[in-house]
């Protein structure tokens, strides 16, 4: 299902089940309006997020990726988000060498009670990605074949 062309960008969220996914629920229960771009993938813990999932998303044409977990010290699994913080921080650093603006990727903490904060995070991040605009997808095929197919169908 493509995003609504011209209106939405492709933004993927990885949320830990215990805090941030709950926070997003809380925001919903409270009927806090949010932009519709974000699609949420539920994982048990931010520690489950291999930064390469984020890379994969960008390679496949995501315009922005958001990871959200429990606040440090509040991790349902005690330590998962501590590891996540280090790995994601370093990875956020890394992507600029790929030519991907670090602002396209954020990681943050939202607890199950912070519906308001979630609304704020989603809204601000969505705007942040929109100001950067779409990210050119990396072609699945080789460049010359791509050129060929493009000339084929003008």
């Amino acid at each position: 299902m493509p995003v609504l062309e011209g209106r939405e960008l492709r933004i993927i969220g990885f949320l830990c089940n215990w805090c941030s996914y709950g926070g997003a629920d809380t925001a919903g229960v409270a009927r806090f309006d949010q932009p519709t771009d974000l699609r949420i993938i539920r994982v048990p813990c931010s520690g489950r997020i291999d930064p390469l999932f984020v890379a994969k998303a960008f390679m496949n044409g995501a315009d922005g990726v958001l990871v959200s977990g429990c606040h440090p010290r509040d991790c349902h699994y005690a330590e998962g988000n501590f590891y996540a913080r280090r790995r994601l921080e370093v990875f956020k650093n890394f992507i600029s060498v790929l030519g991907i603006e670090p602002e396209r990727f954020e990681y943050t903490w939202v607890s199950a009670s912070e519906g308001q904060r979630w609304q704020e995070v989603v809204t601000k991040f969505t705007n942040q990605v929109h100001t950067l605009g779409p990210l050119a997808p990396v072609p699945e095929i080789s460049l010359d074949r791509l050129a060929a197919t493009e000339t084929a169908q003008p």
Partner: protein
Amino acid sequence: MLEQLKDTIKKALPELDFVIGWGMGFDALHATPLFMYEPEDVDKLVWGPLNVHNLATYLPALKGRKVGIVVKGCDSRSVAELLQENLINREDVVIFGAPCRGTVSLTKIRKVIGNTGLIEDVNYADGTLTVKAEGASHEMALKDIRADKCGYCRFPNAVLSDHFVGEKRAPQVEEDTFEDLAEFESQPFEERRDFWMKEMDRCIRCYACRNACPLCVCRDHCVAQSRDPHWLSQQDGVRDKFMFQIIHATHLAGRCTTCGECERACPVDIPVLLFKRKFTKAIKDTFDYDAGLDPEATPPLLAFKANEDNIKEKEW
């Protein structure tokens, strides 16, 4: 110094299955890994700017056997890293170190002398390298054809060794300033992307970069070729090749010693080391950590602090 090194190895040889070093290759310009079983093998040992290979790459596969290895400073960091990850046992490995004056980049040499036939002779003396091929003789200043990594080398001497011969040399630089990276990132994001698109498009997906990497220890289980997990398709497209490089770099984050084997081994000269350099800088900046110095250290990405010193999280 070479003789001294040979003697040391000969002395140690009886205790060992064999010792890995460098010998002369198919021509005068190409050294090649040398496996020394007998004292006479040791006489084939060479030492100099042509010893480009990082022999530590062999070690994990030899785990459990008693072997010796001759190392340059950079190679020794790979050994240290392998020790840290328990992929080799300290007591099984005997390390022979010697001061390194830097190695050449065969790519750069090729750029100078072009594709010649058989190289007849090579001499290097104080700062210059002379190559004789097809009658012609090419003189090159070592610094012009030196491998990039030697330009910012901080460890010309083995960081750990059982036998060290020769005078320890002063490091090239005190701190690695990552100018190469800064220069690359001085161009706008789109241009960086476009650059990689073109580079990755040239990739022939031979995995030489991976196979040469002393720390790519997954070997047969590399996610690049597995279906479960299925990270990459076998399609010959930019996306999968690019993704593979990102995987390689990410798996090396906090482990890579930037020995540069990946880039050296690349048959189409894609500057893939840059990815690892970026991670190395990020790790250095964030955790003030250098991989491959201390076998006892815990690498930063396998640890955490409740309050991180250098991580500023985004305020919304």
